[in-house]
């Protein structure tokens, strides 16, 4: 009896991969390692919402088109618990065990960089919807593509705009969460400030998970900055802004990235959010006429609102765009084979609901213009690029 069970088990082990491969002809499988639990859970959930919306739209349209045939699409999620080494393991398992045709990268630049080597090794295209640092794309990899432009594309337009509006501004304070993206943004902000001969009067980092910023802000108040730049995530930024108000710190310009892009930021701060400027890779106010499954930007926003009763932010849009871009590439390639998909992605030059998509030699999107915006009257108002501007920069905060 035991021998029979052993034989059955062995047979199942041998046959299972063949079944999986046989199933492979029936559907498109995409691996998506996400931080669904742990400190990055809010961001992981946002990414997942973008993917889920895209899959729903693909299903509604009758399936994923490859050349002239349609197949169902399935995203295989793997929770890496906000731990980058687990994200790399998850990518490996998704490729070797689940036999995915493509990967959506884990959240952020660090995890995307670490896991991109897996995609390269197995020649499986990876689209990174939330990685902006140049270091992710400077590895010489051919299978990695990213939907965020480099970080300086956020700080440079802000620098131009602030000095055009208030040329007397000279003193800048930078306060940043000690984390990959906020630090990278702060580094770019420092370069943008130096380029414009602005004096850096305060430059500090705060630890991840900090709740109290009163002492650092007291010190910042002593430095009397005219422009304050804060890099962090929504929770940090809400706390920093609240405590700035408590301490009477009122610079002429307050820029925060990336919290103001989220609806919960304005909901949490009410009047204190007024006149906070920011930039993100995408904003619901942008207007593009795409050839992708979502079509126009307004159409994407409406579908998102219908599904989640919330306004999408740049992470959710970028995740949905990753799916839409993969879909356009597969239609062009007519195949789900890694190298064919990769070549189609590399040569893509299309307009999407998210913006113009064409990837540079490193795989990072290059023609996208991240919008600069400011909270005015409780709503984000786009200030740049000029083609979609809805208002002008206002000075002063409450």
């Amino acid at each position, binding site marked *: 009896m035991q021998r029979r069970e052993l034989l059955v088990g062995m047979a199942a082990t041998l046959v299972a991969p063949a079944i999986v491969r046989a199933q492979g002809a029936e559907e498109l499988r995409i691996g998506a390692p996400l931080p669904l639990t742990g400190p990055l859970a809010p961001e992981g959930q946002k990414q997942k919402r973008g993917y889920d919306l895209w899959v729903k739209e693909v299903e509604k349209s009758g399936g994923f088109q490859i050349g002239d045939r349609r197949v169902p699409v399935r995203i295989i999620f793997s929770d890496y618990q906000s731990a980058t080494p687990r994200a790399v393991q998850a990518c490996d398992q998704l490729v070797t065990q689940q036999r995915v045709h493509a990967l959506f990268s884990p959240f952020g630049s660090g995890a995307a960089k670490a896991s991109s080597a897996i995609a390269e090794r197995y020649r499986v295209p990876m689209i990174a919807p939330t990685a902006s640092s140049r270091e992710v794309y400077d590895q010489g990899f051919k299978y990695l593509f990213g939907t965020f432009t480099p970080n300086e594309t956020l700080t440079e337009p802000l620098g131009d705009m602030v000095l055009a509006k208030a040329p007397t501004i000279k003193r800048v304070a930078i306060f940043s969460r000690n984390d990959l993206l906020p630090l990278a943004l702060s580094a770019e902000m420092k370069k943008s400030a130096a380029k414009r001969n602005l004096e850096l009067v305060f430059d500090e980092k705060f630890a991840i998970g900090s709740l109290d910023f009163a002492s650092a802000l007291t*010190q910042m108040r002593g430095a009397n900055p005219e422009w304050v730049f804060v890099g962090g995530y929504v929770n940090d930024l809400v706390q920093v802004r609240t405590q700035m108000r408590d301490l009477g710190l009122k610079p002429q310009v307050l820029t925060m990235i990336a919290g103001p892009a989220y609806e919960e930021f304005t909901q949490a701060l009410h009047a204190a959010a007024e006149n906070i400027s920011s930039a993100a890779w995408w904003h619901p106010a942008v207007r593009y006429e795409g050839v992708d499954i979502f079509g126009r930007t307004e159409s994407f926003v409406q579908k998102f609102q219908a599904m989640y009763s919330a306004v999408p932010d740049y992470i959710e849009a970028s995740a949905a765009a990753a799916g839409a871009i993969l879909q356009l590439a597969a239609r062009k390639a007519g195949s789900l084979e890694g190298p064919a998909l990769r070549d189609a992605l590399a040569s893509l030059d299309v307009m999407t609901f998210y913006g113009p998509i064409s990837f540079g030699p490193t795989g990072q999107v290059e023609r996208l213009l991240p919008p600069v915006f400011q909270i005015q009257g409780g709503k984000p108002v786009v200030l740049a690029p000029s083609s979609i501007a809805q208002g002008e920069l206002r000075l002063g905060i409450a």
Partner: protein
Amino acid sequence: MTVQITQVILNGVLLGGLYAAMAAGFSLVWGVLNIINIMQGSAVVLGSYAAYFAWRYTGLNPLLAIAVAGPLLFGVGWVLQRFLIQRVVAAPVLITLVFTFGLDLVLNNAMISFFSADYRKIEGVFPTAPLTFGALTLPVDRLLAAVVGIGAAFALHLYLHKSRLGRAIVAVRMDRQTAELMGVRVELIYAMTFGLGLAMAGIAGCLLAAIFPTSPLNSAHYLHIAFVACVLGGLGSVLGAVAGGLLLGIVESLGSLFVGAEYGTTVAAVILLLMLFTRPQGLMGRAGYE
């Protein structure tokens, strides 16, 4: 510079008031049951959620939500101790530590499942304009929370020293066997103590919810604060926990000013190490107390 330092010390005192409330219950449980309650941080977060939902659905002020969260967490603590922790209470400290670590995992992940990891914030309850004294400012919400936090810790201290049941708790802490011989029901006292420890966590949670956003992800940070404040102040002493909390708040604030914002916690950890080398019993603990 004097104004800046004074402001930073004031910030530290207000922060320390919250730390004191977090540490008082932790210290009590450690002192009486000899249990390092790893679940304390998550219990604080649970108290914050009680305050958040009370505010969200009834508009209740988080400082008044103490009346809900305190008894609720007391009940949770009492039941946990009576039916689970009691089974391992006589085991070596490592066993109880691992046990409460396991309970913490369950509670924390349950909160992530039920409430999600998103941050929730109580808004519009306190005036946003701070009190000003010349160049110094005092945020109203922090001032009230710190006063209530220190007040709650003092109330616990008075309860332990003035009430019959409180004196029984102190007696068990000093000498369990003798207390038992004197007719004290030790199992009941243990459950009572663990309940009080978690009730203090619930109260601290309400105070924190009035100021900071709530998420299960905060629990490890809160546990760290309770642990450091408790060791700084001295094990088993509620007043020591208050002193430890205030000291920790001031040290973190000054460390942030003089060393850098990201090193405030590191400076506090260095002070903790120095304290362990020079005065291991803490500010108000007794030498040799285990």
